[in-house]
Protein backbone atom coordinates (compact mmCIF):
# COMPACT_ATOMS: atom_id res chain seq x y z
CA UNK A 1 0.00 0.00 0.00
CA UNK A 2 2.65 2.59 0.87
CA UNK A 3 4.46 1.77 -2.36
CA UNK A 4 1.24 2.34 -4.26
CA UNK A 5 0.84 5.74 -2.67
CA UNK A 6 4.48 6.59 -3.24
CA UNK A 7 4.31 5.47 -6.85
CA UNK A 8 1.22 7.49 -7.51
CA UNK A 9 2.74 10.54 -5.86
CA UNK A 10 5.88 10.17 -7.90
CA UNK A 11 3.88 10.06 -11.12
CA UNK A 12 1.84 12.99 -9.91
CA UNK A 13 4.88 15.12 -9.28
CA UNK A 14 6.44 14.15 -12.58
CA UNK A 15 3.28 15.07 -14.49
CA UNK A 16 2.94 18.18 -12.37
CA UNK A 17 5.93 19.76 -14.04
CA UNK A 18 4.26 19.22 -17.37
CA UNK A 19 1.03 20.73 -16.08
CA UNK A 20 3.00 23.77 -14.99
CA UNK A 21 4.56 24.15 -18.42
CA UNK A 22 1.16 23.77 -20.04
CA UNK A 23 -0.24 26.48 -17.82
CA UNK A 24 2.50 29.07 -17.78
CA UNK A 25 1.75 30.33 -21.26
CA UNK A 26 -1.89 30.84 -20.47
CA UNK A 27 -0.99 32.63 -17.26
CA UNK A 28 1.45 34.91 -19.05
CA UNK A 29 -1.01 35.88 -21.77
CA UNK A 30 -3.82 36.42 -19.32
CA UNK A 31 -1.68 38.52 -17.04
CA UNK A 32 -0.31 40.68 -19.81
CA UNK A 33 -3.21 41.09 -22.19
CA UNK A 34 -6.14 40.16 -20.01
CA UNK A 35 -7.33 37.83 -22.78
CA UNK A 36 -8.10 34.32 -21.78
CA UNK A 37 -6.96 32.26 -24.73
CA UNK A 38 -9.32 29.32 -24.68
CA UNK A 39 -7.57 27.91 -27.74
CA UNK A 40 -4.48 27.34 -25.59
CA UNK A 41 -5.18 23.63 -25.35
CA UNK A 42 -5.40 23.37 -29.13
CA UNK A 43 -1.97 25.00 -29.46
CA UNK A 44 -0.67 22.36 -27.10
CA UNK A 45 -2.37 19.71 -29.23
CA UNK A 46 -0.72 21.05 -32.37
CA UNK A 47 2.66 20.91 -30.68
CA UNK A 48 2.03 17.31 -29.78
CA UNK A 49 1.07 16.39 -33.32
CA UNK A 50 3.99 18.28 -34.83
CA UNK A 51 6.34 16.34 -32.62
CA UNK A 52 4.57 13.10 -33.41
CA UNK A 53 4.79 13.58 -37.18
CA UNK A 54 8.39 14.72 -37.08
CA UNK A 55 9.16 11.58 -35.12
CA UNK A 56 7.09 9.23 -37.27
CA UNK A 57 8.05 10.61 -40.64
CA UNK A 58 11.61 11.70 -40.04
CA UNK A 59 12.65 9.74 -37.01
CA UNK A 60 13.70 12.78 -35.01
CA UNK A 61 13.76 12.22 -31.28
CA UNK A 62 10.97 14.25 -29.63
CA UNK A 63 13.33 15.80 -27.10
CA UNK A 64 15.64 16.93 -29.85
CA UNK A 65 12.85 18.39 -31.95
CA UNK A 66 11.58 20.55 -29.08
CA UNK A 67 13.24 23.76 -30.28
CA UNK A 68 11.73 23.26 -33.71
CA UNK A 69 8.32 22.69 -32.17
CA UNK A 70 8.70 25.86 -30.16
CA UNK A 71 9.57 27.84 -33.28
CA UNK A 72 6.67 26.34 -35.19
CA UNK A 73 4.19 27.23 -32.49
CA UNK A 74 5.66 30.71 -32.13
CA UNK A 75 4.92 31.20 -35.83
CA UNK A 76 1.38 29.90 -35.45
CA UNK A 77 0.91 32.19 -32.47
CA UNK A 78 2.23 35.08 -34.51
CA UNK A 79 -0.27 34.42 -37.28
CA UNK A 80 -3.18 34.02 -34.89
CA UNK A 81 -2.34 37.16 -32.98
CA UNK A 82 -1.77 39.35 -36.01
CA UNK A 83 -4.84 38.15 -37.86
CA UNK A 84 -7.29 38.00 -35.03
CA UNK A 85 -6.39 39.09 -31.53
CA UNK A 86 -4.58 42.29 -32.43
CA UNK A 87 -7.86 43.67 -33.74
CA UNK A 88 -9.43 43.49 -30.33
CA UNK A 89 -6.73 45.22 -28.32
CA UNK A 90 -8.27 48.66 -28.72
CA UNK A 91 -11.69 47.64 -27.45
CA UNK A 92 -13.01 48.77 -24.08
CA UNK A 93 -12.23 46.34 -21.28
CA UNK A 94 -15.51 44.41 -21.06
CA UNK A 95 -15.86 43.99 -24.83
CA UNK A 96 -12.23 43.06 -25.16
CA UNK A 97 -12.53 40.27 -22.65
CA UNK A 98 -15.74 38.89 -24.11
CA UNK A 99 -14.70 39.10 -27.74
CA UNK A 100 -11.31 37.53 -27.22
CA UNK A 101 -12.99 34.74 -25.33
CA UNK A 102 -15.37 34.14 -28.23
CA UNK A 103 -12.75 34.41 -30.93
CA UNK A 104 -10.46 32.10 -29.00
CA UNK A 105 -13.25 29.64 -28.81
CA UNK A 106 -13.85 29.89 -32.57
CA UNK A 107 -10.17 29.26 -33.17
CA UNK A 108 -10.18 26.22 -30.91
CA UNK A 109 -13.14 24.83 -32.81
CA UNK A 110 -11.47 25.28 -36.17
CA UNK A 111 -8.14 23.84 -35.05
CA UNK A 112 -9.81 20.86 -33.44
CA UNK A 113 -11.92 20.19 -36.51
CA UNK A 114 -8.96 20.49 -38.87
CA UNK A 115 -6.91 18.22 -36.67
CA UNK A 116 -9.67 15.63 -36.72
CA UNK A 117 -9.83 15.88 -40.49
CA UNK A 118 -6.15 15.53 -41.05
CA UNK A 119 -5.01 13.39 -38.19
CA UNK A 120 -8.11 11.23 -37.55
CA UNK A 121 -9.57 10.63 -34.14
CA UNK A 122 -7.12 7.92 -33.16
CA UNK A 123 -4.98 8.28 -30.08
CA UNK A 124 -1.36 8.77 -30.92
CA UNK A 125 1.74 8.51 -28.83
CA UNK A 126 5.44 8.72 -29.32
CA UNK A 127 7.26 5.60 -28.28
CA UNK A 128 10.97 6.05 -28.39
CA UNK A 129 13.53 3.29 -28.08
CA UNK A 130 14.12 4.21 -24.48
CA UNK A 131 10.47 4.64 -23.65
CA UNK A 132 10.21 1.81 -21.21
CA UNK A 133 13.38 2.55 -19.30
CA UNK A 134 13.16 3.74 -15.76
CA UNK A 135 15.27 3.95 -12.68
CA UNK A 136 14.07 2.79 -9.35
CA UNK A 137 14.49 4.68 -6.13
CA UNK A 138 13.26 3.33 -2.82
CA UNK A 139 10.95 0.94 -4.60
CA UNK A 140 9.40 3.64 -6.75
CA UNK A 141 9.74 3.57 -10.51
CA UNK A 142 10.76 6.77 -12.28
CA UNK A 143 10.37 6.44 -16.06
CA UNK A 144 13.10 8.46 -17.67
CA UNK A 145 10.88 10.11 -20.27
CA UNK A 146 8.83 11.58 -17.49
CA UNK A 147 11.83 12.67 -15.49
CA UNK A 148 13.29 14.29 -18.58
CA UNK A 149 9.98 16.04 -19.20
CA UNK A 150 9.92 17.39 -15.69
CA UNK A 151 13.47 18.62 -16.08
CA UNK A 152 12.67 20.36 -19.33
CA UNK A 153 9.55 21.93 -17.91
CA UNK A 154 11.56 23.22 -14.98
CA UNK A 155 14.24 24.63 -17.25
CA UNK A 156 11.67 26.43 -19.39
CA UNK A 157 9.92 27.90 -16.38
CA UNK A 158 13.15 29.07 -14.78
CA UNK A 159 14.27 30.57 -18.09
CA UNK A 160 11.01 32.43 -18.41
CA UNK A 161 11.28 33.61 -14.84
CA UNK A 162 14.74 35.03 -15.46
CA UNK A 163 13.65 36.55 -18.72
CA UNK A 164 10.91 38.44 -16.97
CA UNK A 165 13.02 39.41 -13.98
CA UNK A 166 16.36 40.25 -15.46
CA UNK A 167 15.99 41.37 -19.06
CA UNK A 168 14.92 44.81 -20.19
CA UNK A 169 12.17 43.40 -22.39
CA UNK A 170 10.98 41.21 -19.57
CA UNK A 171 10.72 44.20 -17.28
CA UNK A 172 8.79 46.07 -19.95
CA UNK A 173 6.37 43.15 -20.02
CA UNK A 174 5.98 43.23 -16.25
CA UNK A 175 5.47 46.98 -16.36
CA UNK A 176 2.70 46.49 -18.93
CA UNK A 177 1.07 43.89 -16.72
CA UNK A 178 0.96 46.31 -13.85
CA UNK A 179 -0.11 49.48 -15.64
CA UNK A 180 -0.42 49.59 -19.40
CA UNK A 181 -1.18 53.30 -19.59
CA UNK A 182 1.93 54.18 -17.61
CA UNK A 183 3.88 51.80 -19.83
CA UNK A 184 2.53 53.50 -22.94
CA UNK A 185 3.55 56.98 -21.87
CA UNK A 186 7.08 55.69 -21.54
CA UNK A 187 7.16 54.71 -25.15
CA UNK A 188 6.51 51.02 -24.68
CA UNK A 189 4.56 49.69 -27.64
CA UNK A 190 1.78 47.73 -26.00
CA UNK A 191 0.90 45.86 -29.18
CA UNK A 192 4.42 44.50 -29.37
CA UNK A 193 4.36 43.47 -25.74
CA UNK A 194 1.07 41.68 -26.23
CA UNK A 195 2.38 39.95 -29.32
CA UNK A 196 5.49 38.83 -27.52
CA UNK A 197 3.51 37.44 -24.61
CA UNK A 198 1.21 35.62 -27.01
CA UNK A 199 3.94 33.97 -29.04
CA UNK A 200 5.94 32.96 -25.98
CA UNK A 201 2.76 31.42 -24.65
CA UNK A 202 2.20 29.51 -27.88
CA UNK A 203 5.78 28.25 -27.90
CA UNK A 204 5.50 26.98 -24.33
CA UNK A 205 2.19 25.31 -25.07
CA UNK A 206 3.68 23.60 -28.10
CA UNK A 207 6.59 22.24 -26.12
CA UNK A 208 4.24 21.01 -23.43
CA UNK A 209 2.23 19.24 -26.12
CA UNK A 210 5.30 17.52 -27.48
CA UNK A 211 6.13 16.26 -24.00
CA UNK A 212 2.57 15.06 -23.52
CA UNK A 213 2.91 13.08 -26.75
CA UNK A 214 5.90 11.30 -25.29
CA UNK A 215 4.60 10.81 -21.76
CA UNK A 216 0.98 10.06 -22.49
CA UNK A 217 -0.90 10.26 -25.75
CA UNK A 218 -2.49 12.86 -27.95
CA UNK A 219 -5.81 13.08 -29.70
CA UNK A 220 -7.39 16.00 -31.60
CA UNK A 221 -10.05 16.51 -28.96
CA UNK A 222 -7.56 16.93 -26.12
CA UNK A 223 -7.60 20.71 -26.37
CA UNK A 224 -10.43 21.39 -23.99
CA UNK A 225 -9.08 19.03 -21.33
CA UNK A 226 -5.68 20.69 -21.40
CA UNK A 227 -7.13 24.20 -21.46
CA UNK A 228 -9.00 23.26 -18.32
CA UNK A 229 -5.84 21.83 -16.76
CA UNK A 230 -4.02 25.03 -17.59
CA UNK A 231 -6.85 27.06 -16.09
CA UNK A 232 -6.84 25.06 -12.88
CA UNK A 233 -3.08 25.38 -12.49
CA UNK A 234 -3.21 29.06 -13.33
CA UNK A 235 -5.78 29.72 -10.65
CA UNK A 236 -3.97 27.55 -8.11
CA UNK A 237 -0.59 29.05 -8.81
CA UNK A 238 -1.57 32.67 -8.95
CA UNK A 239 -1.57 34.86 -12.01
CA UNK A 240 1.67 35.97 -13.49
CA UNK A 241 3.65 34.10 -10.88
CA UNK A 242 5.90 31.82 -12.91
CA UNK A 243 7.31 29.78 -10.10
CA UNK A 244 3.89 29.70 -8.50
CA UNK A 245 2.55 28.14 -11.67
CA UNK A 246 5.11 25.38 -11.34
CA UNK A 247 4.02 24.76 -7.78
CA UNK A 248 0.39 24.87 -8.90
CA UNK A 249 1.17 22.27 -11.51
CA UNK A 250 2.74 20.00 -8.93
CA UNK A 251 -0.27 20.56 -6.69
CA UNK A 252 -2.59 19.46 -9.47
CA UNK A 253 -0.38 16.47 -10.22
CA UNK A 254 -0.48 15.43 -6.60
CA UNK A 255 -4.27 15.93 -6.52
CA UNK A 256 -4.59 13.66 -9.53
CA UNK A 257 -2.33 11.11 -7.89
CA UNK A 258 -4.32 11.07 -4.68
CA UNK A 259 -7.58 10.83 -6.61
CA UNK A 260 -6.14 7.81 -8.39
CA UNK A 261 -5.89 6.08 -5.07
CA UNK A 262 -9.33 7.14 -3.97
CA UNK A 263 -12.02 7.53 -5.28
CA UNK A 264 -10.38 6.36 -8.47
CA UNK A 265 -8.88 7.64 -11.69
CA UNK A 266 -12.22 8.35 -13.36
CA UNK A 267 -12.81 11.08 -10.80
CA UNK A 268 -9.56 12.93 -11.44
CA UNK A 269 -11.08 15.55 -13.64
CA UNK A 270 -14.02 16.05 -11.32
CA UNK A 271 -11.90 16.51 -8.21
CA UNK A 272 -9.57 18.91 -9.99
CA UNK A 273 -12.43 20.98 -11.36
CA UNK A 274 -14.19 21.09 -8.00
CA UNK A 275 -10.96 22.26 -6.39
CA UNK A 276 -10.72 24.86 -9.13
CA UNK A 277 -14.24 26.10 -8.51
CA UNK A 278 -13.72 26.27 -4.77
CA UNK A 279 -10.53 28.30 -5.16
CA UNK A 280 -12.11 30.54 -7.79
CA UNK A 281 -15.15 31.36 -5.71
CA UNK A 282 -13.13 31.74 -2.51
CA UNK A 283 -10.84 34.20 -4.20
CA UNK A 284 -13.81 36.12 -5.57
CA UNK A 285 -15.21 36.29 -2.07
CA UNK A 286 -11.88 37.62 -0.87
CA UNK A 287 -11.20 34.63 1.32
CA UNK A 288 -7.88 33.89 -0.23
CA UNK A 289 -5.81 36.99 -0.55
CA UNK A 290 -6.22 39.27 -3.54
CA UNK A 291 -9.52 39.33 -5.35
CA UNK A 292 -9.45 38.02 -8.89
CA UNK A 293 -10.87 40.11 -11.68
Amino acid at each position, binding site marked *: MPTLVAQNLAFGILMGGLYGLAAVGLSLVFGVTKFLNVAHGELLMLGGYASFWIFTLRGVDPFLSLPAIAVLLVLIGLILYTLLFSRMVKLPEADKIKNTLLVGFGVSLILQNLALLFFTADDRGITTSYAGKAFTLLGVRFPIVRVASLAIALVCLVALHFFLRRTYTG*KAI*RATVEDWEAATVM*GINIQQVYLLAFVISAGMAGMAGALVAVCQSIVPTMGLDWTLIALVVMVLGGLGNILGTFVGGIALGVTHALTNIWPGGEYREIVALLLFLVVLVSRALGLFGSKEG
Partner: protein
Amino acid sequence: MITLEGIDAHYKDLQALWNVSLQVGEGELVALVGPNGAGKTTTLKVISGLLKPTAGNVLLDGRSLVKEPAHKIVQMGISQVLEGGRVFTELTVLENLELGAFGAKARKVRAESLKWVYSIFPRLEERQKQRAGTLSGGERQMLAIGRALMARPRLLLLDEPSFGLAPLLVEQIFEMITEINRQGVTILLVEQNVRAALELTDRAYVIENGRIVGQGSGESLLSFESVRTAYLGSAGG
Protein backbone atom coordinates in the same frame (compact mmCIF):
# COMPACT_ATOMS: atom_id res chain seq x y z
CA MET B 1 5.95 74.58 -29.67
CA ILE B 2 2.76 72.67 -28.95
CA THR B 3 -0.65 73.83 -30.09
CA LEU B 4 -4.11 72.44 -29.53
CA GLU B 5 -6.73 73.65 -31.97
CA GLY B 6 -10.43 73.13 -31.43
CA ILE B 7 -10.12 69.82 -29.63
CA ASP B 8 -13.27 67.79 -28.94
CA ALA B 9 -12.83 64.60 -26.97
CA HIS B 10 -15.20 61.82 -26.01
CA TYR B 11 -15.16 58.88 -23.61
CA LYS B 12 -17.42 56.42 -25.44
CA ASP B 13 -20.53 58.57 -25.99
CA LEU B 14 -19.76 61.11 -23.30
CA GLN B 15 -18.22 64.35 -24.48
CA ALA B 16 -15.45 65.60 -22.21
CA LEU B 17 -13.84 68.46 -24.13
CA TRP B 18 -15.40 71.17 -26.27
CA ASN B 19 -13.33 73.21 -28.69
CA VAL B 20 -10.26 73.30 -26.47
CA SER B 21 -7.42 75.43 -27.83
CA LEU B 22 -4.16 76.25 -26.14
CA GLN B 23 -0.52 76.88 -26.82
CA VAL B 24 2.70 76.27 -24.99
CA GLY B 25 5.86 77.87 -26.28
CA GLU B 26 9.36 76.49 -26.11
CA GLY B 27 10.82 76.76 -22.64
CA GLU B 28 7.62 77.95 -21.02
CA LEU B 29 6.11 76.74 -17.78
CA VAL B 30 2.36 76.87 -18.28
CA ALA B 31 -0.43 75.72 -15.99
CA LEU B 32 -3.86 74.31 -16.75
CA VAL B 33 -6.12 74.86 -13.78
CA GLY B 34 -9.68 74.02 -13.07
CA PRO B 35 -11.95 72.15 -10.69
CA ASN B 36 -12.27 68.41 -10.42
CA GLY B 37 -13.60 66.78 -13.54
CA ALA B 38 -13.12 69.86 -15.67
CA GLY B 39 -11.14 67.97 -18.29
CA LYS B 40 -7.57 68.69 -17.29
CA THR B 41 -6.40 65.09 -17.36
CA THR B 42 -8.34 64.51 -20.55
CA THR B 43 -6.50 67.39 -22.21
CA LEU B 44 -3.15 65.92 -21.24
CA LYS B 45 -4.19 62.50 -22.54
CA VAL B 46 -5.11 64.04 -25.88
CA ILE B 47 -1.64 65.54 -26.13
CA SER B 48 0.22 62.38 -25.13
CA GLY B 49 -1.94 60.26 -27.40
CA LEU B 50 -3.60 58.09 -24.78
CA LEU B 51 -6.92 59.50 -25.95
CA LYS B 52 -7.60 60.38 -29.56
CA PRO B 53 -9.68 63.52 -30.08
CA THR B 54 -12.90 63.36 -32.06
CA ALA B 55 -12.29 66.78 -33.58
CA GLY B 56 -9.49 69.30 -33.77
CA ASN B 57 -5.73 69.03 -34.07
CA VAL B 58 -2.64 68.70 -31.90
CA LEU B 59 0.46 70.24 -33.43
CA LEU B 60 4.04 69.76 -32.29
CA ASP B 61 6.20 72.30 -34.09
CA GLY B 62 3.56 72.38 -36.76
CA ARG B 63 3.36 68.61 -37.15
CA SER B 64 0.06 66.92 -36.41
CA LEU B 65 0.14 64.26 -33.69
CA VAL B 66 -3.45 63.13 -33.91
CA LYS B 67 -2.76 60.10 -36.08
CA GLU B 68 0.33 58.94 -34.20
CA PRO B 69 0.20 56.09 -31.68
CA ALA B 70 0.97 57.08 -28.11
CA HIS B 71 4.29 55.29 -27.87
CA LYS B 72 5.54 57.17 -30.94
CA ILE B 73 4.55 60.49 -29.45
CA VAL B 74 6.85 59.76 -26.53
CA GLN B 75 9.70 59.29 -28.95
CA MET B 76 8.92 62.67 -30.44
CA GLY B 77 9.70 64.25 -27.13
CA ILE B 78 6.51 64.40 -25.11
CA SER B 79 6.44 62.66 -21.74
CA GLN B 80 3.48 62.51 -19.40
CA VAL B 81 3.49 61.98 -15.68
CA LEU B 82 0.10 60.47 -14.93
CA GLU B 83 -2.03 61.50 -12.02
CA GLY B 84 -0.80 59.80 -8.89
CA GLY B 85 2.53 59.04 -10.43
CA ARG B 86 1.68 55.45 -11.31
CA VAL B 87 5.12 54.01 -10.75
CA PHE B 88 5.63 50.30 -11.27
CA THR B 89 5.50 49.10 -7.70
CA GLU B 90 6.86 45.64 -8.48
CA LEU B 91 10.03 47.00 -10.04
CA THR B 92 12.89 48.77 -8.29
CA VAL B 93 13.50 52.51 -8.47
CA LEU B 94 16.38 51.92 -10.83
CA GLU B 95 14.32 49.59 -13.04
CA ASN B 96 11.55 52.17 -13.19
CA LEU B 97 14.01 54.83 -14.28
CA GLU B 98 15.65 52.54 -16.83
CA LEU B 99 12.28 51.76 -18.38
CA GLY B 100 11.73 55.48 -18.70
CA ALA B 101 14.48 55.55 -21.30
CA PHE B 102 12.72 53.01 -23.48
CA GLY B 103 13.12 54.66 -26.86
CA ALA B 104 16.26 53.97 -28.87
CA LYS B 105 17.52 57.54 -28.68
CA ALA B 106 16.96 57.80 -24.98
CA ARG B 107 18.55 54.43 -24.38
CA LYS B 108 21.83 55.60 -25.87
CA VAL B 109 22.18 58.40 -23.34
CA ARG B 110 20.68 56.45 -20.49
CA ALA B 111 23.66 56.67 -18.17
CA GLU B 112 23.89 60.44 -18.49
CA SER B 113 20.13 60.82 -18.09
CA LEU B 114 20.31 58.80 -14.90
CA LYS B 115 22.98 61.11 -13.50
CA TRP B 116 20.89 64.09 -14.41
CA VAL B 117 17.77 62.72 -12.72
CA TYR B 118 19.76 61.80 -9.61
CA SER B 119 21.14 65.33 -9.48
CA ILE B 120 17.62 66.70 -9.32
CA PHE B 121 16.27 63.96 -7.05
CA PRO B 122 19.14 62.70 -4.86
CA ARG B 123 16.67 60.74 -2.73
CA LEU B 124 16.06 58.42 -5.66
CA GLU B 125 19.73 57.52 -5.87
CA GLU B 126 19.70 56.52 -2.24
CA ARG B 127 16.77 54.23 -2.81
CA GLN B 128 17.65 52.92 -6.22
CA LYS B 129 17.63 49.24 -5.30
CA GLN B 130 14.37 49.41 -3.41
CA ARG B 131 11.08 48.23 -4.85
CA ALA B 132 9.06 51.24 -5.87
CA GLY B 133 6.14 49.99 -3.83
CA THR B 134 8.09 50.70 -0.63
CA LEU B 135 8.53 54.40 -1.37
CA SER B 136 6.56 57.15 0.32
CA GLY B 137 4.05 59.23 -1.60
CA GLY B 138 6.44 62.08 -2.17
CA GLU B 139 9.22 59.77 -3.29
CA ARG B 140 6.90 58.05 -5.74
CA GLN B 141 6.00 61.38 -7.25
CA MET B 142 9.68 62.17 -7.61
CA LEU B 143 10.25 58.79 -9.19
CA ALA B 144 7.39 59.33 -11.61
CA ILE B 145 8.80 62.67 -12.69
CA GLY B 146 12.34 61.32 -12.85
CA ARG B 147 11.15 58.42 -14.94
CA ALA B 148 9.51 60.76 -17.40
CA LEU B 149 12.72 62.81 -17.59
CA MET B 150 14.71 59.71 -18.57
CA ALA B 151 13.10 59.99 -21.97
CA ARG B 152 14.77 63.41 -22.34
CA PRO B 153 11.49 65.05 -23.23
CA ARG B 154 11.17 68.44 -24.82
CA LEU B 155 7.70 68.75 -23.33
CA LEU B 156 6.78 67.39 -19.92
CA LEU B 157 3.12 66.97 -19.04
CA LEU B 158 2.60 66.91 -15.28
CA ASP B 159 -0.76 65.79 -13.93
CA GLU B 160 -1.37 67.04 -10.39
CA PRO B 161 2.16 66.50 -9.02
CA SER B 162 1.15 67.87 -5.64
CA PHE B 163 -1.82 65.62 -5.13
CA GLY B 164 -1.96 63.99 -1.73
CA LEU B 165 1.35 65.41 -0.60
CA ALA B 166 2.10 67.34 2.57
CA PRO B 167 2.64 71.09 2.05
CA LEU B 168 6.37 70.89 2.70
CA LEU B 169 6.76 68.20 0.08
CA VAL B 170 4.62 70.17 -2.32
CA GLU B 171 7.02 73.08 -2.00
CA GLN B 172 9.97 70.79 -2.65
CA ILE B 173 8.35 69.23 -5.69
CA PHE B 174 7.52 72.64 -7.08
CA GLU B 175 11.09 73.79 -6.58
CA MET B 176 12.27 70.78 -8.53
CA ILE B 177 9.76 71.49 -11.27
CA THR B 178 11.05 75.04 -11.55
CA GLU B 179 14.59 73.70 -11.74
CA ILE B 180 13.66 71.25 -14.50
CA ASN B 181 12.09 74.06 -16.47
CA ARG B 182 15.13 76.21 -15.90
CA GLN B 183 17.24 73.45 -17.42
CA GLY B 184 15.29 73.73 -20.64
CA VAL B 185 12.32 71.40 -20.43
CA THR B 186 9.00 72.92 -21.48
CA ILE B 187 6.32 72.08 -18.96
CA LEU B 188 2.54 71.97 -19.03
CA LEU B 189 1.32 71.57 -15.51
CA VAL B 190 -2.15 70.53 -14.48
CA GLU B 191 -3.03 71.47 -10.95
CA GLN B 192 -5.96 71.78 -8.62
CA ASN B 193 -3.79 73.72 -6.20
CA VAL B 194 -4.39 76.97 -8.05
CA ARG B 195 -2.51 79.30 -5.77
CA ALA B 196 0.72 77.31 -6.01
CA ALA B 197 0.29 76.79 -9.75
CA LEU B 198 -0.18 80.50 -10.38
CA GLU B 199 2.89 81.41 -8.35
CA LEU B 200 4.95 78.86 -10.21
CA THR B 201 4.03 79.51 -13.78
CA ASP B 202 4.42 82.17 -16.43
CA ARG B 203 0.81 81.88 -17.41
CA ALA B 204 -2.16 79.62 -17.02
CA TYR B 205 -5.31 78.45 -18.78
CA VAL B 206 -8.51 78.01 -16.86
CA ILE B 207 -10.71 75.10 -17.85
CA GLU B 208 -14.23 74.44 -16.64
CA ASN B 209 -16.68 71.76 -17.75
CA GLY B 210 -14.51 70.78 -20.68
CA ARG B 211 -14.10 74.31 -22.03
CA ILE B 212 -11.27 76.79 -21.79
CA VAL B 213 -12.78 79.84 -20.12
CA GLY B 214 -9.75 82.03 -19.88
CA GLN B 215 -6.05 82.44 -19.82
CA GLY B 216 -3.50 84.88 -18.55
CA SER B 217 -0.61 85.42 -16.22
CA GLY B 218 -0.88 84.67 -12.55
CA GLU B 219 -2.28 87.92 -11.31
CA SER B 220 -4.63 88.64 -14.16
CA LEU B 221 -6.37 85.35 -13.49
CA LEU B 222 -7.37 86.49 -10.08
CA SER B 223 -9.85 88.69 -11.85
CA PHE B 224 -11.75 85.52 -12.75
CA GLU B 225 -14.54 85.27 -10.24
CA SER B 226 -14.50 81.51 -10.49
CA VAL B 227 -10.77 81.29 -9.88
CA ARG B 228 -11.03 83.58 -6.92
CA THR B 229 -13.96 82.20 -5.11
CA ALA B 230 -13.92 78.55 -5.94
CA TYR B 231 -10.25 77.85 -5.55
CA LEU B 232 -8.46 80.46 -3.53
CA GLY B 233 -10.86 79.85 -0.72
CA SER B 234 -9.51 76.32 -0.17
CA ALA B 235 -6.04 76.90 1.21
CA GLY B 236 -3.30 74.58 0.03
CA GLY B 237 -5.46 72.75 -2.50
